[in-house]
């Protein structure tokens, strides 16, 4: 199973600044392993961000996003105590959802 994300959400003037770290290899599909074989592409293809269950952001990624991806986005109309949920799914169908409380 995928390792948990680290989500931080800090509210200032009604806007939540959300910073997310995800553990993922993000293989490009162009790297060769030590035996010279091409390592197949493996990357997070979609990420969604939600405030109290309502989707606010949807990201579509390719393998050009760096390993162990970092995503920062801003959510309007947020206050301390709100729930920020982030989910990702990769091109193999593996997925992960984590939640943080805005402070």
């Amino acid at each position, binding site marked *: 199973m995928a*390792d*948990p994300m*680290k989500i931080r959400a800090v509210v200032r003037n009604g806007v939540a600044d959300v910073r997310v*770290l995800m553990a993922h*290899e993000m*293989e490009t599909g162009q790297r060769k392993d030590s035996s010279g074989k091409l*390592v197949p592409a493996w990357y997070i293809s979609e990420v969604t961000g939600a405030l109290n269950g309502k989707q606010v952001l949807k990201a579509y990624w390719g393998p050009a996003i*760096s390993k*162990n991806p*970092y995503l920062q986005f801003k959510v309007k109309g947020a206050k301390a105590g709100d729930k920020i949920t982030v989910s990702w799914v990769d091109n193999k169908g593996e997925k992960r959802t984590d939640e943080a409380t805005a402070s």
Partner: protein
Amino acid sequence: MSVIRRGAVAIGAALALLVAAAPTLSQAQSNTQAELEKYRQMLGDGNPAELLVMRGEGLWKTKRGPKQASLEGCDLGKGPGVVPGTYAELPRYFADTDSVMDAEARIVHCIVTLQGIPRADAVRNPYSGAGQRQTDMEALVAFVVEESRGVTINVPQKHPKEIAAAQRGEKIFYFRGGPYDFSCASCHGEDDKRIRLQDLPNLNKDEPARRAFATWPAYRVSQGAMRTMQWRIYDCFRQQRFPELDYISPASIDLITFLGVRAQGGKMDSPAIKR
């Protein structure tokens, strides 16, 4: 004394450079430095090593090995079970092994003695390779060092073996060998030097020596992995064109002891994030 002399030489060299460089080139160089600073600052916003710290904490508390024990009873120098602040005072002398050990050597010791995992297994693949998940060892080190963030570096020099280790470490620091004739000091003995665009800390000077020790282990974006202090030394020697340094070998611990003593008074700020 030698530090002062080297400092003077470095200042002279820096002045000579300033005079020699054409204005357009030095201006371009300062723009380069400013943009690199921006790059490094933007990276600082989110360090993937935090993910490894979480994994390491979980691993530390997990019962593993033939003895089905966790590492929570590990004595890292402040007594069994105490993790906070320990990294800042390692390497140090441990009476139970009658030797000076760095953080990684001590963690291996605990894995062997508390969990009953054979030493050969514990040290077999300490560093993750390209495209591999970070090793358990790397995760454990990430957790341990995080617990010393902000703590003042105070590598002890009380026991005769601690003093001897630092003295040997200094000799190793200046040991020139291999087809390139390099020693550690070849790259880390003067102020304001770079390889390509990477700043090289002058480990003869207090401030850069503190900063360097304080920011290892670090997440290396070029490798997509957090690397430990043992790895830092290992890979320096690789680029020095030396043979392969053994994990937690005596020379590595001596050198880390020397660097730790040089860094006295700095504040741990690790895991850091670097190119």
